[in-house]
C-alpha cells in the first residue's frame, strides 16, 4: 500500500508589514478622534469669516439654534418658525432657572444660520429672543483659514 506522505505545505504570508500598517492607521484615527459633541446640523452651512477664533472656554448657558436655508429653526431635534420660537425660549429658560441661578440675562443664544438664509429671519429670531428678555447673542461662523 502506498502511503501518501505528501505534506501539504501551507505557505504562510508574512503578516508583519500589514499589522504594522494597520496599527499605524489605528493610532492615527485614535489620536484624531474627538468625542466632543459637535452641534452640527445637516441643514446648516455656516458662512465663514477670517476674524473669528474658536472660543477658549465653552459658552455658559447656551441655547443653540440652527437656522436652515428656508428659515426653519431647529432646536434640539424640533422644528420651529420665528412665531413659535417664543414658547421654546420660555421652556429653555425655565430649565436654566431650575438647574441653577442662571436667568435670561446670563443665557447665550447661539445662532447657527445657513449662509444663504434671509438676514431678516435672523433678525426675527433676535427680536423674539429679546421679547423673552434674552440679550446675549452669538452669531456662529466658520473660521476662514485661507487668508
Amino acid at each position: 500500500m502506498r502511503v501518501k506522505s505528501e505534506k501539504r505545505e501551507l505557505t504562510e504570508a508574512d503578516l508583519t508589514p500589514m499589522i504594522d500598517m494597520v496599527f499605524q492607521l489605528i493610532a492615527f484615527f485614535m489620536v484624531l478622534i474627538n468625542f466632543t459633541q459637535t452641534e452640527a446640523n445637516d441643514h446648516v452651512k455656516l458662512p465663514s469669516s477670517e476674524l473669528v477664533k474658536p472660543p477658549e472656554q465653552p459658552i455658559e448657558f447656551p441655547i443653540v439654534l440652527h437656522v436652515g436655508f428656508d428659515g426653519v429653526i431647529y432646536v434640539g431635534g424640533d422644528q420651529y418658525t420665528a412665531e413659535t420660537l417664543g414658547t421654546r425660549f420660555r421652556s429653555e429658560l425655565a430649565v436654566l432657572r431650575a438647574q441653577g441661578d442662571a436667568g435670561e440675562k446670563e443665557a447665550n443664544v447661539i445662532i447657527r444660520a445657513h449662509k444663504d438664509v434671509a438676514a431678516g429671519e435672523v433678525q426675527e429670531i433676535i427680536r423674539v429672543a429679546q421679547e423673552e428678555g434674552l440679550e446675549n447673542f452669538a452669531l456662529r461662523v466658520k473660521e476662514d483659514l485661507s487668508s
Partner: protein
Amino acid sequence: MKIRNHEPDTKVELQMTSMIDVVFLLLIFFILTFKIVELEGDFSIRMPLASTDAGQMDDSQLPIKLRLIANEQGQLTSILLNDNNLGTDFDQLRASILGIIGTDAGPVPAGEGPEVEIDTDYNLRYENVVNAITAVSGYKVDGQPVKLIEKIKFAPPRRE
C-alpha cells in the same frame, strides 16, 4: 505500549487570525466615527431690548448706521454707511470705518467704543451680513487681528 510522540520543541505560532479580526474591527470603528471638525467661532452681540426712554442718549453715543440693500434675489446691491454709498465693496467699508473711528485712538477697553447698527433688507443673504460684521469689527495684519468696532447691534427687522 504507549508511544509518546514527543516532538522536539516546535515554535509556537501566534494565532494571528483573531487578532487581525479585532484590529480590523477597531480600525473600522475609528474610520466610521472619524469626522473632520471645522473650527467655528462666534461674533458676540449684546442686544438688550431697546429701552423706551431714549432721551438720555447724546450725539456721541449715536450708533454708526450701516444700511445693507439687497435686490430681489437677496444679493447685495449697495452698502450705505451713514448714508454714504460705498457700492458693494467690503474693503471700502472697512476703510470708511477706519476713517470714522481713527487709527490712533489706541486700544479701547472691551465693550467700549462706538457702536454700529446694522439695518439690512429682509431678504439679503445672511452671508453678506456676516461679511459686513467682519469688515466693521476688524482686520488681520500678518495673521494678527486688529479690532475696530466691537459693539454691533441690529436694527428692527424690515418686514417684507
